[in-house]
């Protein structure tokens, strides 16, 4: 039989439109192939700086997200009780008028009565600008319940964090350690980077209680006990310092290690840095033996010299470090049992780090000049790189743990050097260069400044004279003073409790707070539906915007339906969370590659309209008319300050970059360039960015800074010490009595480790965690017909020891109990797991009626959330106070502190707790999908 004749060159598509993916926070460039005007195929854009053509499982499955039967179709108003899911579709005119009629009186009388919080959107510089114009102090995005510890610890310590704000030098590093990462924002770059390391034979060490994904391909797996990463890291620090394997030159020149700290307990300034009249930290200059400002021309800071000033001895930070970390408290033998790692293994890892950092140092022949005016012939690299994320940060000791990791990087001299960790613009940017938080509201007026920022001591807190919080989430209060991203996980709980006050309206965007984005999910659903003595809802109005029929939709009174990511404008802005690389500044757009076939509008465009209707400053013209027709108009024409707008590329006449007047053709220019803009950093500015004048000058030219902002890394976190001083009664104001002990224990200016708060109750002796699957990073993926065939089930994975102890067999179910509640769920054995840790995939479990899934879907009948057994408050201490289940410093939700007990039970009909079905606001999904556009 002859071979069939085959056309091996079929037409691929009618047109390719290039935009930016939004299946997670990675922001890859995509080529969207259209046939007959419809989306036919999505692939990675080879020119794009983030993904270089590759694309993950989510990205390629984006077509099913775009076509999802769960897409909302039109604005809706609630017609049944809250939570029922009974809605009536209404016109946009009615929806906008309803929203304005709720919001206008609030703004005119008391803007604090609006709480506006957004979820995983990436338009925070826009939404915060809107909220600032509205005048409410109650705005934040989801950072507080995500990874603020990572962001804040990085910025306070070294002016930038891992996250998407920096990256290992994948091309040069020789030893890479990954802490607490199953998947991350930088999802494709991490995979590409690991691929490079593998190709070069560089060593990868994965530190994670669970060996999946990245940890599965690591050369060495360290199955650490959850919540002890800080102790392990400080033990490595102990070993390295004890062996003198620290980069003294780096520490002296580029960090605060030589800065002089008041070392006299009798002083009111004990623990503060000695400064000159201009507020500059002082060091001893080795040339003179006298104090000098750290950044003086030619100053050679002395790492070892002390100084007596005003009767008090001041000693360099490095002396304090020696005293803290060389004690037996951090010796491998002391910590081994607690962290679950053999002492010899800790030493072997420390020794390998020392070997690579110092014996395999690399040098680039690139001259650079530092901020003291000293020119260096070479760039010296310590090729040890680290990356970490939520696994180490989502604990009540997460801030100090993240700081401990930065301390380790810094003593090795491996930050911003070849082979180490590198910042991406707009970072490096120290905490002192960020705004402070603002929270003063006045009727009919905008807020007094940006909501979120970095505090440097008690004077920067958002508290009233009686110590009560100004914000509904109590961010920047004594409870969690350095809560740089707000505390979204406390908003509904506090609003329901009327603590610190009641609100009128909750407005949220892309935040599934009635399900997987809340702690205490069942309790939150109750709070959202609770009524007062008059039968009115305790939270009177809820406005919600989402593109999909998520669980949260049922709890809103007014639904503003959003578009899919292929139908909208967006900007991934240098003012926000851009897509820069270590060697380039870059930003990007999304644009409607297809028009919506439903009566939906991008939420940001809706805010432009609402802003006009409410007369918000920044959103209205002088004559009171609406300023921006839609989000695209804002993206192109808004100026945050003269010459600086949301997009940096093709400004002015299209020939200016970074700074320049608004350009009416800017979005077209982006589209022509594949929807992104990139500007490369000159070679002599690519490393040592915080101190390198060539970088500082480039950053000013590009619009990142207004003036060069060199600084030194701060191992000694002075704001923490200022809060301790306040607790010691050495400040004008002082925290409430019940917090003072906690301040003393947790707010040490040098990184420390203390046990996670939930460890206190020993009845619950098993750790319980979640991980995000690579193929379904966010809950958005759950209704995706292709992805749910990969991750439609989430058993509870149980390690061998607990599996055997409980006599589990395949198909069994377990009851999992925490101090807060219990769930009953299916179990599965997994050997590659810390012996005392159980875990499951995050956000697979769904509520009946949501996401257009059938009510007997496995996500509903066998899926589950650990959220039900994690409370937003710590168990009652009998003091009548509501203690948030958060990091005491930053307020980060302590998801991974969860401790449970587990027991075998008879299989129930479905996972428990089971909630009654919500009525679906969208039609039933089709039975069969046969995706093909062309014939």
């Amino acid at each position, binding site marked *: 039989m002859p071979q069939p004749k085959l056309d091996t060159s079929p037409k691929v598509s009618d047109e390719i439109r290039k935009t930016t993916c939004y299946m997670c926070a990675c922001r890859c460039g995509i080529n969207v192939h259209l046939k007959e005007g419809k989306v036919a195929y999505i*692939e990675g854009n080879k020119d794009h700086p983030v993904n270089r053509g590759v694309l*993950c499982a989510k990205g390629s499955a984006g077509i099913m997200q775009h076509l999802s039967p769960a897409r909302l179709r039109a604005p809706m108003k609630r017609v049944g009780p809250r939570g029922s899911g009974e809605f009536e579709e209404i016109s946009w005119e009615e929806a906008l008028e309803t929203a304005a009629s709720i919001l206008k009186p609030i703004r005119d009388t008391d803007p604090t009565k609006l709480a506006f919080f957004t979820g995983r959107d990436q338009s925070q510089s826009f939404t915060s600008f809107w909220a600032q114009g509205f005048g409410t102090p109650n705005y934040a995005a989801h950072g507080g319940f995500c990874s603020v510890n990572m962001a804040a610890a990085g910025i306070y310590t070294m002016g930038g964090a891992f996250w998407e704000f920096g990256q290992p030098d994948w091309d040069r590093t020789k030893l890479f350690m990954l802490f607490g990462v199953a998947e991350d924002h930088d999802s494709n770059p991490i995979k*590409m980077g690991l*691929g490079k390391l593998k190709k070069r034979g560089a060593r990868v060490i994965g530190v994670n209680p669970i060996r999946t994904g990245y940890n599965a391909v690591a050369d060495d797996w360290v199955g650490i006990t959850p919540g002890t990463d800080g102790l392990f890291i400080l033990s490595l620090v102990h070993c390295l310092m004890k062996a003198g394997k620290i980069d003294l030159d780096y520490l002296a020149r580029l960090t605060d290690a030589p800065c002089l700290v008041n070392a006299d307990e009798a002083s009111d300034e004990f623990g503060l840095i000695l400064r000159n009249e201009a507020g500059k930290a002082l060091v001893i200059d080795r040339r003179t033996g006298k104090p000098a400002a750290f950044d003086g021309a030619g100053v050679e800071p002395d790492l070892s010299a002390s100084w007596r000033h005003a009767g008090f001895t001041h000693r360099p930070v490095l002396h304090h470090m020696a005293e803290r970390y060389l004690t037996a408290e951090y010796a491998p033998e002391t910590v081994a049992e607690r962290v679950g790692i053999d002492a010899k293994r800790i030493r072997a890892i420390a020794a*390998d780090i020392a070997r690579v950092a110092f014996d395999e140092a690399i040098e680039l022949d690139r001259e650079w000049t530092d901020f003291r005016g000293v020119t260096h012939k070479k760039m010296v690299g310590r090729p040890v790189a680290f990356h970490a994320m939520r696994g180490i940060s989502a604990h009540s000791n997460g801030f100090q743990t993240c700081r401990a990791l930065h301390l380790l990087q810094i003593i090795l001299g491996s930050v911003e050097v070849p082979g180490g960790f590198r910042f991406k613009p707009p970072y490096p940017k120290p905490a002192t260069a960020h705004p402070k938080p603002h929270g003063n509201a006045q009727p009919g007026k905008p807020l007094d400044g940006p909501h979120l920022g970095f505090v440097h001591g008690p004077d920067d807190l958002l508290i009233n004279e009686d110590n009560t919080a100004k914000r509904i989430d109590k961010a920047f209060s004594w409870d969690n003073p350095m809560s740089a991203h707000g505390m979204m996980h406390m908003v509904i709980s506090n609003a329901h409790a009327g603590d610190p006050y009641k609100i009128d309206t909750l407005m949220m965007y892309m935040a599934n707070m009635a399900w997987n984005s809340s702690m205490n999910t069942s309790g939150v659903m109750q709070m959202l539906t609770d009524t007062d003595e008059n039968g009115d809802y305790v939270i009177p109005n809820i406005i919600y915007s989402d593109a999909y029929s998520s669980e949260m939709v049922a709890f809103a009174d007014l639904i503003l339906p959003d578009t899919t990511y292929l139908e909208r404008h967006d900007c991934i802005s240098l003012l926000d969370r851009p897509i820069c690389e270590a060697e380039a500044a870059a930003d990007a757009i999304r644009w409607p590659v297809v028009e919506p076939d439903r009566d939906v509008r991008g939420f940001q465009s809706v805010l432009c309209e609402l802003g006009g209707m409410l007369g918000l400053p920044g959103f209205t013209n002088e004559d009171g008319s609406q300023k921006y027709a839609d989000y695209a108009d804002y993206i192109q024409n808004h100026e945050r300050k003269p010459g600086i707008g949301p997009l940096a590329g093709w400004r002015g006449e299209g020939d200016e970059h970074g700074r320049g007047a608004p350009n009416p053709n800017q979005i077209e220019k982006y589209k022509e360039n594949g929807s992104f803009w990139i500007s490369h950093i000159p070679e002599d500015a690519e490393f040592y960015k915080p101190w390198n004048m060539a970088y500082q000058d480039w950053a000013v030219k590009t619009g990142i800074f207004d003036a060069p902002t060199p600084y030194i890394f701060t191992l000694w976190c002075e704001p923490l010490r200022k809060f301790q001083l306040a607790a010691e009664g050495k400040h004008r104001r002082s925290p409430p009595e019940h917090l003072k002990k906690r301040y003393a224990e947790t707010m040490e200016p040098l990184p420390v480790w203390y046990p996670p708060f939930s460890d206190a109750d020993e009845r619950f002796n098993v750790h319980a965690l979640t991980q995000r699957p690579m*193929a379904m990073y966010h809950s958005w993926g759950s209704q995706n017909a292709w992805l749910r065939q990969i991750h439609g089930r989430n058993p509870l994975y149980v390690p061998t020891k607990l599996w055997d102890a409980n006599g589990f067999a395949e198909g069994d179910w377990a009851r999992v109990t925490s101090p807060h509640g219990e769930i009953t769920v299916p179990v599965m054995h997994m050997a*590659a797991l810390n012996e005392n840790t159980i875990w499951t995939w995050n956000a697979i479990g769904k509520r009946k009626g949501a996401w257009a899934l059938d009510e*007997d879907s496995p996500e509903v009948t066998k899926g589950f959330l650990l959220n039900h057994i994690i409370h937003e408050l710590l168990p009652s201490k009998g003091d009548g106070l509501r203690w948030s289940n958060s990091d005491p410093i930053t307020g980060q939700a302590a998801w991974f502190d969860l401790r449970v007990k587990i027991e075998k039970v008879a299989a129930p009909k479905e996972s428990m707790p089971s909630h009654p079905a919500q009525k679906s606001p969208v039609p039933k999904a089709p039975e069969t999908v046969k*995706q093909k556009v062309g014939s």
Partner: protein
Amino acid sequence: MTLLPTHTEKTLGLVIDLDTCVGCHACVTACKGWNTENYGAPLADVDAYGAEPVGSFLNRIHSYEVQPETGGPAQLFHFPKSCLHCADAPCVTVCPTGASYKRVEDGIVLVNESDCIGCGLCAWACPYGARELDPSEKVMKKCTLCVDRIYNENLPEEDRQPACVRTCPAGARHFGDLSDPESDVSKLVAERGGFDLMPEQGTAPVNKYLPPRPKDEVPEFDILAPYLEPVAEEPQGFLGWLDKTLERIG
């Protein structure tokens, strides 16, 4: 019965690096996306939003836990699997209609859907479970090695590779001519000890797998001990070392 060609001009196939594959499933959905839109009938998903979703996929990833016999912690491996385009493909010889065939020019095993009666004999004959009957169209589906991409003159030359290879973020998938000893894929197989999947089946698979490197072999501390030779036992001693060292580097 269908005959296999006695000789193919090229031997195109995949080389999959099990040391690098992180199990992200990128290749799975890129494959689904390209192939539902292109060669043959769409890759259907039945009960797509229901209790038992069943879709046809040409490439799937399986994960296996392994407890090393030498002790040490359990390991997890990700194992992408699609048609291996065997030289002695039993799925072809078993086909009663000639729908399954192996191309003379490049060795790709294909199903001519218009001749496929959906009898399932080929899936039964394949020892790798690499063929799936489409749950809607009832024709046999399998990896085409993106035969409609790799020669496609409507694609830029750099994109003329299978969708799974183009998309793999970790670079764990490689495509080329395994009959050419000078090809990149042949060199990789030689350097890394690429192996056949289940060679005892006698199918002579074209696709090769690169083995994972040994894991959890931290060098003995005794070898590394000199790197941690203490300069001091106590903080005071450390400060003394610091002073001496700073003097020396003066």
